[in-house]
């Protein structure tokens, strides 16, 4: 079902479809009731009063892009669950890129605050814009979609791992890593093998131990820094056995460049000061050796 049709059924596009001269008119009762209903949130959740939501809704469809962008930012910053619906209505009705960017950013913020509901309309709208021709919009849609705690969001994220734009791929990889989507690891590895730096961190979060030697074996085929980045993130994972960490750190130590040094430094810094770890000592030793060889 297309998102516009969904919103038409819900009255969304019908609202958006009023003529500009009518857009300042008072909203009809149905929307008031709906908005009020939407604000019945869980205790502790920020709440937006219904008429405030309504005012921002109107501002979102204002002829003035500046007003609309500000309204989107306000809704995003509110952290209120009811803020999502007017934002999704803008996506459903379409708008100029600047307004769409602001709307997607706002939805992303709501998502980060765990206030983006996994309803079909939201998912459809974000999935649709994850396929927009403009990479900026795709990246933002992916970021927001990644925050939706629903399995239906996974497929569009996986699709965007194959995106032509590196920042979109990176956003998809980060979202998938955050969702612990293990099935994304193999495609991320394929991207890493192509020298895609944006997937190094996310891959490290998902990589299984058997994948680590394969990452190390990319030495010589892609930039050392990308390998160091991936392995550096991997060793920081709490679930990695310390013995394996030592091997990985030694591999990092064998790589050239500042990124490898940074990975070792980061690792040492990531271990609590009082915690004794063989791997921490090994990292420090490798750093000392690198310093001596300078």
């Amino acid at each position, binding site marked *: 079902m297309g998102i*516009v*049709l969904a919103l*038409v059924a819900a009255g969304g596009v019908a609202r958006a*479809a009023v003529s500009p001269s009518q857009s300042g008119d008072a909203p009809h009762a149905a929307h008031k009731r709906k908005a009020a209903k939407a604000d019945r949130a869980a205790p502790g959740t920020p709440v937006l009063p219904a008429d405030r939501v309504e005012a921002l809704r109107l501002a979102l469809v204002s002829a003035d892009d500046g007003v609309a962008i500000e309204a989107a930012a306000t809704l995003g910053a509110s952290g209120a669950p009811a803020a999502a619906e007017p934002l999704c209505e803008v996506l459903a*009705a379409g708008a*100029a890129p600047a307004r769409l960017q602001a709307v997607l950013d706002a939805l992303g913020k709501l998502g980060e605050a765990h206030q983006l509901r996994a309803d079909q309309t939201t998912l459809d709208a974000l999935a*649709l814009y994850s*396929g927009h*021709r403009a990479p900026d919009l795709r990246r933002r849609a992916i970021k927001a979609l990644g925050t939706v705690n629903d399995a239906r969001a996974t497929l569009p994220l996986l699709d965007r791992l*194959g995106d032509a734009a590196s920042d979109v791929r990176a956003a998809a990889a980060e979202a998938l890593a955050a969702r612990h989507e293990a099935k994304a690891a193999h495609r991320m590895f394929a991207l890493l093998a192509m020298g895609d730096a944006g997937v190094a961190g996310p891959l490290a979060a998902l990589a299984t131990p058997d994948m680590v030697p394969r990452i190390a074996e990319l030495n010589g085929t892609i930039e050392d820094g990308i390998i160091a980045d991936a392995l550096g993130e991997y060793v920081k994972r709490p679930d990695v056995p310390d013995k394996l960490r030592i091997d990985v750190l030694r591999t990092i130590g064998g790589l050239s460049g500042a990124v490898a040094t940074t990975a070792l430094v980061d690792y040492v810094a990531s271990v609590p000061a009082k915690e004794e770890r063989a791997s921490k000592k090994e990292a420090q030793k490798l750093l000392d050796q690198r310093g001596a060889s300078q």
Partner: protein
Amino acid sequence: MKAVRSCHDRATIALGAMLALGLGACATSPFQRAGNADDVAAAVARSHPPAASGRSLAFLVLAGAGGARLAEYDLAASRVVWTQPADVTTRVEVGGSVLVHGSKGTTPNGELVGRDLATGAVLWQRPFPSSEHLYGYALDGDALFVVTRSTTTPNKPTGVLAAYDARTGVVRWQAMLPSARVAGPAVRGGVVAVPVESQYVLLYDGVTGLALGQVLSTEEAATFVRALPEGFFYGSRGLFLLGRDTARGSRHATGYLAAQLPAFVRPTYDTDRYRPEQNEYSALDRNRVLWRVTIADGRPQFRDGLAFVHDYRFFFAFDAATAALRWAYVSAEDAVASTDTGRSILFASATGEIVALDPVTGARIFQAGLPGEVVRGATFDAEGFAPPVTAAASTPPDLLGSLTEIIADPDLRFPALKLFAIEELGRQPGRDVTAKLLQILETEKTSPLAIQKAGEMLVARRDAGALELFTAALRAHADYSAKRPAPPVEILARAIGALGPLARAVAPDLDAHLRLPETSPAAATEIAKALVQIGAGESVPALRDFLTMYRADPGYERDPTALVAAAEALLKLGGSTDRELLLFLAEEPHTAAGLRAHVSRALSETATAAKSAAK
């Protein structure tokens, strides 16, 4: 070997005798009898078909590590008869017991060299000084006829036809031609033909040098003359069988013949004998039409109804009446020379392979060669050569396979040929062909023109049996991680649309592309049109999404074609809710101006019909 005999200074000028038939008697024009059918018919009657030599020889001009050489190869015995050091410039012509070719020599305009056919040994050399330019030569048994342009008197160049004893190089007679604008000759059964002034062909008695007749080509330049067992021919873009009805060469004459050939073919039936450089082995030998004729009641017809095209590595047989492709053969290497022996298509490749093809089927019926050699050019003396079937024989080439091989060939020299191959492939029946056309479209290195042609063929095929192929192609979305480019959606949509409602099942796969970032506006336009053609009412949501997502996109402000197509599709496939959406789009000020204008107009034009439908 040094000159055995220089005979230039021994020429016997027999001008008086040459001026018979009124040529010299005419004070105003030497061509007053041009087009005289009686003269020409009588001359042709004197020209007897040459007796078959029964030989099957190839003369190969060799280069490479072994140096410049000339080799005689016996096709029947599959062996080299002899090899001689030779710096061959112009073509080898073969006579009864002699062969003649050009060589650089030591004089400014090179020399002709006569060689013994059995051994290749030099018999004589005939140098050309700076005042004498060689235009061509032909052998009739052991009589050699040479056309030159003399500039001994710089302001008054003259054309000269000379007859020599080909074994000794001694001049037998010499005739002043009525023009200095001369071309290389041909000789058949005692009659010599020499084109002059582009539109005349002069006929001479080979024994005496007496003028016999003059042909006047009125509609087509006569750039060549050619002697074949079946007759004497002249022409340029067509063939005139020399005879009474072609004495005044008109394309309406029964003796005129021209094959229907595809656009990529350079339709010349022989080299331009007015251009001496074409006597050399060159690219012209690799790109030519091969032909033989049969004659019934004076009316020539292409033998087996076929004309053959040699295009570097490729050989084609075409129906001469319709240009329909009969077969295509792909050689591994460039063929540097070829001939139609009457019973086979014979060619030599640049790497020394010698192959004969069955003219009717294209099957290889003979294969031999000189491995490791570099062949610059070749001349064949193999009239009627048709070897017995041996192990070297192949089955007739698979047309689909040959065309696919041509299209996939990485050689960039043949863009027009590839387009032709794609077009021919598209004409072949079968689902496999559709699959191959899709493969061409998806091949990264395919040129834009080839993609366009393959697309046209795919659309024109209307192959409803290939829906699964279209679906599979559409589902192979672009994927950077798999290094997979986007499918050719624009073309696929057109091909699917052409199938109409039969292709409705593919609608969801087209819809998916409306929602993908790599789908170009042009592809989106074709998708929208296709959805209407196949009547995909279920695609309305995808059309709505596309319209709303891009309605205010600045890219579509400049060119709203795709949005307009989607709006049109929505209007045709959607219902009253969709009219509401379109109304919103028309009124919302951020919507692309072109779309707003179009939708307003479309809604107004369809308002009555929509109201009726609603009732």
